[in-house]
């Protein structure tokens, strides 16, 4: 027993997988084993999007207390709208569309950093205000009819091999890259160092500004990727397509075991938490819960998980 607890303590992300598995088992038990595989496939497809933006949010939150990116939903919307409009259902224009969408996302990331660093606006307010501007840009640019994604993009976003969505494999690749960056690269180590103690990191010769700059740009780029794939998945961009990701991007990071105080990131936890969040909704739907009950139970379960997983250890 004590071995189990010490295993869990060293791996805060394990909780999210345990929670996801428990919720899945409860669902499957209720249906009598029916649709067990389909539920997992659907969860993987939908969790993919929360995972992409969750990874970016995780990096931002890891750079220290107060750092959070609230512009993710607006960036998703903007890049989705730009991608669809530039591609204009034409498969041969896909590459230009992707480049244009990512360029917009990049610009948002740079703008966020400028607000935070040069104007010294707290990140929450800086990314919030920039998200207002970005959303307005998306609304005014994306006016009018819904444009369908070009077929190759739609195929990429929705195709499955043996029940495993291709998009999920693609996101797994991104995840591995980020995990590698965090553990093995100078940039990744800098993120954690800055998050643990900004001043100590600075004294050790790390450029705090450069680390934060890369991080905010990375988060914006990942939101851009999410926007493109999501528009492919749901048959076009919509002005409210990013809405859900404000809360879910933060929730998957924290439920996944990343420290809100910064300096400790948990990459696998993002997967566990994203799967957990989706499976939870599936379970409540299967049980036939009404919308209100679903909201309420989702909230209560999020709180329960965070209480069980425990908070930050007392620092110093």
């Amino acid at each position: 027993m004590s071995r189990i607890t010490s295993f869990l303590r060293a791996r805060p992300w394990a909780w999210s997988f345990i929670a996801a598995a428990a919720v899945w088992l409860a669902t499957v038990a209720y249906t009598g084993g029916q649709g067990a595989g389909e539920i997992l496939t659907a969860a993987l497809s939908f969790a993919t999007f929360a995972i992409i933006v969750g990874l970016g949010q995780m990096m931002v939150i890891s750079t220290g207390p107060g750092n959070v990116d609230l512009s993710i939903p607006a960036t998703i919307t903007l890049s989705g709208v730009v991608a669809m409009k530039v591609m204009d259902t034409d498969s041969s224009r896909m590459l230009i569309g992707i480049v244009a969408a990512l360029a917009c996302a990049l610009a948002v990331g740079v703008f966020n950093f400028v607000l935070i660093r040069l104007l010294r606006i707290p990140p929450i307010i800086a990314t919030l205000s920039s998200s207002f501007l970005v959303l307005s840009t998306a609304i005014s640019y994306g006016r009018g009819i819904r444009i369908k994604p070009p077929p190759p993009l739609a195929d990429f976003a929705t195709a499955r091999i043996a029940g495993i969505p291709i998009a999920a494999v693609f996101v797994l690749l991104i995840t591995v890259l980020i995990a590698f960056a965090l553990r093995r690269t100078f940039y990744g180590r800098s993120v954690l160092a800055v998050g643990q103690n900004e001043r100590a990191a600075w004294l050790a010769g790390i450029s705090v500004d450069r680390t934060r700059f890369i991080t905010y740009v990375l988060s914006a780029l990942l939101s851009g990727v999410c926007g493109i794939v999501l528009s492919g998945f749901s048959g076009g961009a919509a002005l409210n397509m990013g809405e859900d990701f404000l809360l879910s991007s933060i929730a998957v990071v924290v439920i996944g075991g990343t420290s809100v105080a910064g300096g400790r990131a948990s990459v696998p936890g993002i997967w566990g938490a994203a799967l957990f969040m989706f499976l939870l909704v599936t379970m409540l739907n299967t049980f036939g819960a009404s919308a209100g009950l679903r909201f309420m139970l989702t909230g209560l379960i999020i709180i329960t998980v965070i209480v069980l997983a425990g908070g930050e250890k007392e620092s110093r």
Partner: protein
Amino acid sequence: MITRSLIRKALPFLSLAIVLLATFIVQPRTMSYFGLNLMMQYAVPIALATIAQMFVITVNDLDLSIGPFVGLVGCISATLLLDNPALGILALLALMACYGAVGALIHLRNLPSIVVTLGLSFVWLGIAVLILPSPGGKAPEWLKAMMAFKMPIVPLPIIAALVIGIVVHLALMQSSYGVVARGAGGNAKAMARAGWSMLNIKVIMYALAGFFGVLSGLSLLGLTTSADAHVADRYTLFSIAGVILGGGEFIGGRVSPLGAVVGALTLALAGSFLIFLKISPDWQIGAQGAILIIVLALRAAVSFGEARS
């Protein structure tokens, strides 16, 4: 003697004055009792929600659930409070107690407030939707009458918002317990070592946030006269922005109640101003973001000089 710290303190008021002046210039007809009353209609609920948020920010936490909470209070008041006042009051008191309990939970388990209140926002929304699946209900008559009350000379919303700001300002900035509470945000360890119970402080500050959240919900219902679970979803972000615009900081117990109210009014007024400017509706939110950025950039410029001189 004009010091930088004075400019810094005056900045929220100056911003409000500038936005107000600009509104008057663009649309002179607003410079009347009726015009001001109309523009400032929602000042009271927004100011109250901002004050609620401010209490939580004072102890270095953040409340992401205040918007749905205000919506829930509206739903309860438009149904339960209307049909059975005693039970309704009991329910509202229970909600405040919940807030206090959440403060205790966050402190005892040392939890990140962002996540707990994020989860809480779903709980409030869920209960509200269970009570009122679709918009409806009716505001109690006394509540409508109170919000529609016409003051002589100056419209009620302005007076009420200012009174709220001043009362809370006196309580938090001048009383000895206010100093303790802000000290808890400045250096929790020092306050704990000085013998103050951090648990008590957190519970009281969260319960106060709940209290002002309830007031916000009631006053909003008095204006809208029927309830909707989603009516106040934007209040969460508005209230945070209001506190910061008003000169508050996220950490260190540096807050200003009067500033917070003024900050909230500025944001609310900015919305009307942009409508008068006839900016395309596409750019309404964007312009609000731009106003936030400009005011905060000004403050940064002032504070930067403050640090150097």
